[in-house]
């Protein structure tokens, strides 16, 4: 009935689409519980994603993908008009790349177009500049699914075409291109996450970082597969897919928490928050789970993928030519840098937003998040537990996907054993607790903060002077100063400075030109028509005469 004439639309389910559907389920359920369930546009958006994941032919895939883009554009438009037009521009660019790519024969040109089209939608550097603007705009439930689910659908397209559809024509440099884009996203995303002050923009920066981590894993896998090293390809794929699963749980959790903060205080700027753990302890505790995942701390949901990815990159550094090896060494340094930056960003989110003293009356008066939002967050946190403590089991479930993508692979068991590690961590902690209970002086006395001997604040400042407490901007200041010379141009993200701002200027110029044409007087229009007629006749006459 629908679809291309004579072909129609077809759906199918295989291991890969099942995995990505499974990634979608918890976050969609959590957003629906948290309040998005009544929005029709939201369900159209979800239907688009499901259609793209289940597509068996190129037309259905494009149909689902564009349905997803259009519905999410409407949802972004509810929040803010500025990023919505940027968003629709990127969506059109991505469609302009994807539509020809999917109908081209398998080859390097088609892959590059897929990478450009789906990569722009996933927020891969250097086309990521729209993501930290557009993802924070809609309501939190939509931001959650956009960051946790929509970028995964774009990555699914890259996986589907890079590994399955074009698998036979794959070249090692495809993987290298994916790794380069991923490494740039990882660095820039974690840097944005560390420097941004708005809570949701910070989380979107972290999304760019995690998309980069997944892309690095996919790139290493693609390169290893093309070079005939299925063991390494399987390891890197395990890292990428587990990272997609974990990120699909903790990032929506963090976005829902940011929405709760917005509802409770009216702002998401960290510079106006502080001490939220007093007013909203439950949401704060759930945010700690998400922050542990975002920072890839051991025993959290984000550590196992990071562990696998670092091992895959170390393994890749032992193969290939000398330049590739040096490149992988640099990649490892970049991954270390961004892992520490992500830790700093998560610590800043928790430490500035939830600990310390309130920086505004709104933050001091914040109340606990609404019950449905807490339920959605708790659902996602509960799903984080198996990923955090039994990643080996999750990887075993993923085995068919890896065999589908790399048929020759023998996925190795995971070397990281979180349950035993938990014994080693919690054993001493419990021992220390019991020993201190037994031998140390009991009880605690509440006293005014010492603060290096500073005087007490006046009575009309119940939480002290907010200016004597480091702000989110101040917390990031040493890093901004240390890195601002070489990595960052003055305005921030290089892709903003070299790509977004020139595009913006071009857009302004074209708009002005169009406006000029629209406002032209009747004489100018007549002159234009007359001039065109003369030119036409002249051309005709010259043709005849010649």
């Amino acid at each position, binding site marked *: 009935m629908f679809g291309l004439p004579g072909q129609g639309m077809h759906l199918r389910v295989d291991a890969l689409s099942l995995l990505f559907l499974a990634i979608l389920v918890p976050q969609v359920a959590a957003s629906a519980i948290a309040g998005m369930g009544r929005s029709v546009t939201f369900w159209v958006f979800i239907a688009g994603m499901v259609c793209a994941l289940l597509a068996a032919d190129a037309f259905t895939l494009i149909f689902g993908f564009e349905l997803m883009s259009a519905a999410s554009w409407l949802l972004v438009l509810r929040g803010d008009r500025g990023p919505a037009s940027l968003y629709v521009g990127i969506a059109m660019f991505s469609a302009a790349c994807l539509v020809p790519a999917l109908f081209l024969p398998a080859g390097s040109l088609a892959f590059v177009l897929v990478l450009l089209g789906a990569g722009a939608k996933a927020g891969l550097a250097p086309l990521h500049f729209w993501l930290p603007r557009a993802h924070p705009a809609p309501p939190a439930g939509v931001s959650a699914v956009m960051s946790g689910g929509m970028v995964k659908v774009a990555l699914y397209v890259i996986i589907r075409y890079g590994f399955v559809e074009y698998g036979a024509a794959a070249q090692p440099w495809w993987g290298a291109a994916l790794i380069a884009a991923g490494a740039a996203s990882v660095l820039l995303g974690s840097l944005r996450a560390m420097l941004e002050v708005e809570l949701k923009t910070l989380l979107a920066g972290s999304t760019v970082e995690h998309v980069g981590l997944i892309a690095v894993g996919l790139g290493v896998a693609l390169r290893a597969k093309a070079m005939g090293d299925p063991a390494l390809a399987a390891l890197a794929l395990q890292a990428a897919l587990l990272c997609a699963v974990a990120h699909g749980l903790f990032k929506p959790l963090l976005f829902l928490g940011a929405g709760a903060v917005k509802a409770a205080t009216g702002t998401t700027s960290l510079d106006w928050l502080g001490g939220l753990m*007093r007013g909203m302890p439950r949401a704060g505790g759930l945010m700690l789970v998400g922050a542990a995942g975002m920072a890839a701390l051991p*025993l959290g949901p984000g550590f196992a993928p990071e562990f696998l990815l670092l091992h895959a990159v170390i393994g890749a550094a032992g193969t290939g030519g*000398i330049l590739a090896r040096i490149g992988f060494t640099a990649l490892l340094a970049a991954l270390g840098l961004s*892992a520490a930056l992500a*830790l700093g960003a998560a610590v800043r989110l928790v430490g500035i937003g939830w600990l310390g003293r309130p920086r505004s009356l709104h933050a001091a008066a914040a109340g606990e998040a609404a019950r449905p939002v807490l339920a959605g967050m708790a659902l996602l946190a509960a799903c984080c537990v198996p990923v955090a403590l039994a990643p080996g089991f999750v990887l075993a479930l993923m085995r068919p996907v890896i065999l589908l993508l790399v048929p020759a692979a023998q996925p190795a068991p995971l070397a990281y054993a979180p349950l*035993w590690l938990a014994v*080693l961590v919690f054993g001493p902690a419990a021992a220390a607790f019991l020993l201190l209970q037994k031998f*140390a002086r009991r009880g605690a006395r509440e006293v005014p903060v*010492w603060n290096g001997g500073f005087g007490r604040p006046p009575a009309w400042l119940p939480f002290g002077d907010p200016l004597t407490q480091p702000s989110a901007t101040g917390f990031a200041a040493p890093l901004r100063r240390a890195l601002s010379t070489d990595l960052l141009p003055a305005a921030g993200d290089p892709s903003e400075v070299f790509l977004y701002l020139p595009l913006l200027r071009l857009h302004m110029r074209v708009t002005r030109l169009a406006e000029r044409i629209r406002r032209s007087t009747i004489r100018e229009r007549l002159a234009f028509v007359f001039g065109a007629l003369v030119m036409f006749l002249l051309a005709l006459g010259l043709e005849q005469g010649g």
Partner: protein
Amino acid sequence: MLLFLGSFLATLLHAVLMFALAPLLAGLVATLRARLLGRRGPPVWQPYLALRRLLAKTTLVPETATALYPLWPFVAFAPLAACALLVPGFSTGMITAPLSDFITLIGLLALARAAIVLAGLETGFAFGGAAAARDVLFSVFAEAALLVVLLSFVLLAQRATVDDIATVFASGHVGLSVSLGFALAAILAVALTEAGRIPVDNPAGHLELAMVHEAMLLEYSGRFLLLFEYAAMLRLLVWMSLIGSVFCPFFMARADAPWTWPLGLLCWAAKLCSGAVALAVFEISTAKMRVFRVPEFLSVAMLLGVLAGVFLFVAARIGT
């Protein structure tokens, strides 16, 4: 079964020694430093007395602290305790050996650091926040350097756990290599940063503005401060054991062969003593750096780590 019993006993002995001797090492360094400066210095067991004093003190909780205030000392201590159980000391082949993956260790150290930084932000006082920001700045460069150094170890040993790396390096197949020299210099810089020693931070400093690790703990007292202080001592011991077992793995005992233990224990003690002497000599011969020099210091470490890797690649190229 007998082998397992041997490994288990060795692990137990290792744990007891690690937890019992961590304050002694800190005291040894402090005493040596004082002696080298011409002072008599505190007795070597002074840290034990300091910890006992903290046991008897009342714990004070600042008014502005949130409910998570008592959590951070434990979160800072527990991963370091796990590291102490994972890093080989006098012997290789302990029952915790399969878990001692280098990346797990890096993760555990990061977890402990996150807890200390959050403790600094907890009460919302100025010095703690400033020090927390500095610690995050240092960690960004330190972690990158550490990962690059790890690459050289894994390429040389073809293994990723500290225990296996020590075993392979002890077998002498690797020999002396330029890469290991670079890696040693890089890891020493990272260890000095992580353990909060001069030239990055002064553990004996008393000026709040110049402190990093100590300033984050200024609002902690009593039993919570005890845990933080003990965790810091444990961290120094973990780093010294780690560097000792990777770069000087000779004469280490086998956990399942009890007759090798005495020699291993002696060697471990000798390594720790020489480490303490080296640290004390280094600390009195350099001054503390400005905060914004530290990223440069650590970038040099990262560069040395990359060079170690590049030399390995070139050597492999020439070798084949």
